[in-house]
């Protein structure tokens, strides 16, 4: 079966590229007329590649799910071998809280530092922060799109997508030009879950796309992890429900690494920052504080404090969200 032809055929018909579709007479006719050489050349001209399921480089994890795609379109120069490395899907709500954004970013950063590939969906909210976190640590990350491989959706993440593609991969089962459609996103989620050894849900409402990803991961027998949230927050209902069902609670990146069986890299303990930055860093132990609160706690002048915070932010030790700073 010609997977590339199937992907092109399904995209043209606005259908899902299943093996059943491949047996239809319409597809057989389409495949006969399909000029694969020309198609590959036009892909290459756009800087895109096609990784067929039959290709030995196709990730075994993804091939093992019950309805694997006929192949993946790739954007980015990285070796497809990247897709076979230990990987964790970090997913969650699009309208996440500052807390969710912070947790997604920090955990992804540490996973990236430990050499684990962070897989996510390039969506707003948790997905985007997970990609950013991995990139912060110089880690590699894979973004799975629910639309054509050449589109940046959501548009606001165009720059993020290009940063992901610079060191990692942007992948999609849809050929160039396929517009995003609601039904394509749950289908995309099966690839997110399929590409990863484990799925970590950071924040999710009761009926969230992230929970679909978690369900798919469970179906394939992959580990599902969840970050506990406030019991009063609607954004934590989904994750807390997962925990009740037996998902592994995650409070730090080590929990994720342990679930994967990856040894956390023993980093020499970083020397705590000195001077004003040190005082600020110490004050932020276990609390998210606003700049004004920090002025009072540390006794620094507002100007000195601002300088210290920038230093800590550049060192990746502190992040700001909604006017409050966290470690």
């Amino acid at each position, binding site marked *: 079966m010609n997977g590339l032809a199937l992907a092109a055929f399904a995209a043209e018909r606005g259908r899902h590229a299943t093996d059943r579709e491949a047996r239809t007479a319409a597809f057989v006719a389409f495949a006969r007329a399909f000029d694969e050489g020309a198609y590959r050349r036009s892909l290459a001209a756009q800087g895109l590649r096609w990784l067929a399921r039959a290709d030995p480089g196709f990730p075994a994890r993804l091939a093992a799910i019950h309805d694997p795609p006929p192949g993946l379109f790739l954007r980015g120069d990285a070796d497809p071998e990247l897709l076979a490395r230990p990987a964790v899907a970090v997913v969650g709500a*699009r*309208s996440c809280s*500052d807390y969710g954004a912070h947790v997604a970013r920090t955990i992804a950063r540490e996973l990236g530092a430990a050499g684990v590939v962070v897989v996510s969906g390039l969506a*707003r*909210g948790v997905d985007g922060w997970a990609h950013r976190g991995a990139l912060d640590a110089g880690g590699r990350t894979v973004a799975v799109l629910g639309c054509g491989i050449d589109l940046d959706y*959501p548009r*606001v993440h165009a*720059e993020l997508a290009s940063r992901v593609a610079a060191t990692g991969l942007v992948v999609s089962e849809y050929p160039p030009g396929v517009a995003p459609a609601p039904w394509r996103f749950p289908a995309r989620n099966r690839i997110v879950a399929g590409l990863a050894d484990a799925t970590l849900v950071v924040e999710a409402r009761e009926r969230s796309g992230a929970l679909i990803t978690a369900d798919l991961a469970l179906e394939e027998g992959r580990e599902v992890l969840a970050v506990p949230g406030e019991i009063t*927050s*609607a954004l934590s209902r989904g994750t807390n429900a997962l925990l009740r069902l037996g998902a592994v609670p995650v409070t730090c990146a080590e929990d994720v690494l342990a679930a994967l069986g990856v040894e956390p890299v023993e980093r020499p303990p970083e020397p705590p920052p000195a001077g004003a930055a040190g005082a600020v860093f110490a004050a932020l132990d276990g609390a998210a504080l*606003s*700049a*004004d*609160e920090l*002025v*009072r706690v540390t006794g620094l*002048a*507002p*100007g*000195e*404090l*601002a*300088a*210290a*915070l*920038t*230093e800590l*932010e*550049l060192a990746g030790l502190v992040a*700001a*969200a*909604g*006017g*409050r700073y966290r470690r």
Partner: protein
Amino acid sequence: MLARTITHVVVGLEPRRVEVEAHLDAGVPGFAIVGLADRACQEAKHRVRSGIASAELAWPARRRITVNLAPADVRKEGPGFDLPIALAVLGASRQLPPGSLDGHGAIGELGLDGRVRPVPGALAAAEGARAGGLERLVCAAESGPEVALAGIRPVPVRHLAEAVGYFRGEREPEPAPPPRAPNRAPPVADLADVRGQERARRALEIAAAGRHTLLLAGPPGIGKSMLARRLPGILPPLADAAALEVTRIHSVAGLLPPGGGLVRTPPFRAPHHTASSAAVIGGGSSPRPGEVTLAHRGVLLLDELPEFSRTVLEALRQPLEDGTVAVARVGGRVSFPASFQLVGTMNLCPCGGRGDPGASCSCAPAQLDRYRDRLSRALLDRFDLVLVLPRPNAAELGGAGGEPSARVRERVVAARARLERPAARLEPAADRLLSRAVERLPLSGRGRARVVRVARTIAALAGADEAAAEHVAEALSYRSPPEVGGA
């Protein structure tokens, strides 16, 4: 029988000389004003006739009176022609000594009882009169101090009869009342009223010292507008040239309190977000200055920035860039000065819940994107200082008030003086820090230049000539965070 007076009409902010000729001849009695006069100007007929009668002077009976306003291609607007028309008619009817009107300009509105009322733009008209070689300008008593600012001798009169008395040599005009103490009123709100908010105060001080644009973001009710309104109070008073410029603009706009002198306080304008682009940028069939021009050399506060219409926000880009705004209308193309300091405030989302630990945000992601998209990257890129303010906790609100504005202003004045020297280069360590930041943060070329400018201001506030690493670090902390679309 012909007599002539000189007056000035203000087009945009520029005075244009207008000759008012009155001609009396035998014919069917009548009174006509020609020369592109608008409605208020046509109504001068009735005011002039009543005014002359009330001053117990003779209305030329059984005469045809023609008043011509030359040049005829300039649109004449407003009631400022009343006094010159009345004087020309009196001159033409030989009720004033021949030649007595020479060397005099006149501007003012007449009441039916002959009272002379002040009109907007007296300062600009007086400047035109001086430039045109006139020696004295007859004006309303209230306009006297304003006219004197232009460097021409005013003849302040309260009544048409007083003006006639002056031209007949019966009385010398009273010297113009000395301008009241520089317009320090109305008192601006003081920073001492603000509790906590150390970071915002600091940013306000930097903004004042470097004339930087400032954007305050945060949940509603935390004092964003309150802080922004206190910026004028820490700005140094205007220097002579700037004060004259601002006074002229405010005079044209009719915003000067009567009898006041130079405007020394930097103006503060806060148009509502429903304001039309003509109101903000300037406009009208014959262009009038908008809020950006009224805020010239002062502060323009746009409260709830994303609620302003897109056209208004985009139109702000030109004045922000080059300090002037061009308004093209049927009545002509006019360029207004508009070198203002922009201060914006905004919530973090349309519902206002974001950034507030006590509330939750109910906005859909797409709604949030739309809200942030309202501020184009290009506009956002023009804010030097962007601050996200969290809701202060109860303890902070119970604290003591902060430093009063006067003390902050002293530091601002000192920093301004330092900033006037040619810019020194960054210290090498500062340069290295900046390069590192450019690698790690999404910082455009424009963003980088802006950080350098802010760092120089911070250095100047610290009494240093060269910006050091800590100054650059602080400047970096005011870049726009992702919450307001800074990526």
